[in-house]
């Protein structure tokens, strides 16, 4: 009986030793939605299409002439 308890305890405790231990404060904070979107090229390209639908293309006057 004692042997069975000891083996059981060993099986339970041993994996815990190999678990990564990090204090809560050192864990990375979840990225803000600004960061999530602005670091993702695919999302930004799709968003660009949406922005264009709503606001239209960036505008430059066709009447500009000569060198600036």
């Amino acid at each position, binding site marked *: 009986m004692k042997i069975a308890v000891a083996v059981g305890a060993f099986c339970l405790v041993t994996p815990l030793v190999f678990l990564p231990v990090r204090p809560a404060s050192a864990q990375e904070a979840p990225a*803000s*939605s*600004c*960061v999530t*979107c*602005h*670091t993702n*090229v695919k999302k*930004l*390209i799709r*968003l*660009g299409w*949406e*922005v*264009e639908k*709503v606001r239209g293309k*960036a*505008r*430059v*006057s*066709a*009447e*500009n*002439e*000569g*060198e*600036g």
Partner: protein
Amino acid sequence: MEPYEKIYVDPAFLKTEHGQIACVDCHGGNPEDPNWQTAHGNLVKDPTFPDPEKTCGECHPDIAAGAATSLHYTIAPIGRAIERRMGPAPENVRQAMATARERHCGQCHASCGQCHVSRPDYVRGGFLTGHHFKKTPPMETTCASCHGGRIFGEFTGLNKKIPADTHFADEDMTCMDCHKAEQMHAAADGVATRRQSPTRPRCEACHPEAVAEDSPRAAHQIHRRKVACQVCHAQPAKQCYGCHVGTDKKNIPYFKCQKTTLDFKIGLNPDPNPDSPYRYSVKRHPPIVPETFDYYSPGALKHFDQEPTWKSGAPHTIRRRTPQNAACNNCHGNRKLFLDVKDLTDGEREANAAVVVSDEKLPPVIAPEDMPKN
């Protein structure tokens, strides 16, 4: 530049010192809102304008305080020149001109962010590299965005048949080697024009021997404090004439520059002083005519003659050897090099009376026996 590139944030930026600051701290907006339109509702695109002291000034108080009144930030001399040319105008004219200045002239100011983080507004922005802060901005994007029409092309040799400035071509120098941070950030309250800025680049800072009383070169001794360095060492530079501004049918501002030339003109210095004692300096024609703002207020520049349209300039086309300094009489007596009344339009004769070099003021031809030996 593709629209997404303008606003893409490099993940590596988030590990830098500036990347540790929460986005909302500078830009506002609402990161909790899943709808991009409302999330960006109160977004501050450029947190460094109009008040850099609230953002940059938190950690860089001295720089931000000076930069807020710097020439790049306020472009105040342009406004003052327009004011002088307007004179005491009625309120409706002043309001129309304020709109014109905001829509056109005002596009060229540069905030902290428009030099160190993104391209200037004038070229519709976009991060330099993924929101990284660049202590020394890249000249080919930052400086050239606003100064690309004239200065950058001259400096790098883009003008046909005019070699690049020797500082660029032979010494690999960039804009920032002469226009240092101290100049860019300098407070400019009370500085009338950029040529009066005490922090502007001076040739003699790197070439003291050229202006020394005992200079080994005879030409430097003879012309010392009489002739600006560029008179002998600059090549032709771009002159712009006849710029008109307005707003098209879609309410988009436009600029029309009708004529440009590559020219080299030496004129009189209308206001010699201890800082700029020269009798002769190289002139540049800025893109202004009496009708420039007529779209907004016809005849608004009633006092156009208040200042010259050929202004002392510093062409960025410097070479040790130039056609005019190859021999004394390439310059002396060479009418073509000097600003003549024939070079002026009818509308600008009075404005340039003090800078035109009349035949009597042309430097005389040098006789062979009077020529210096070196």
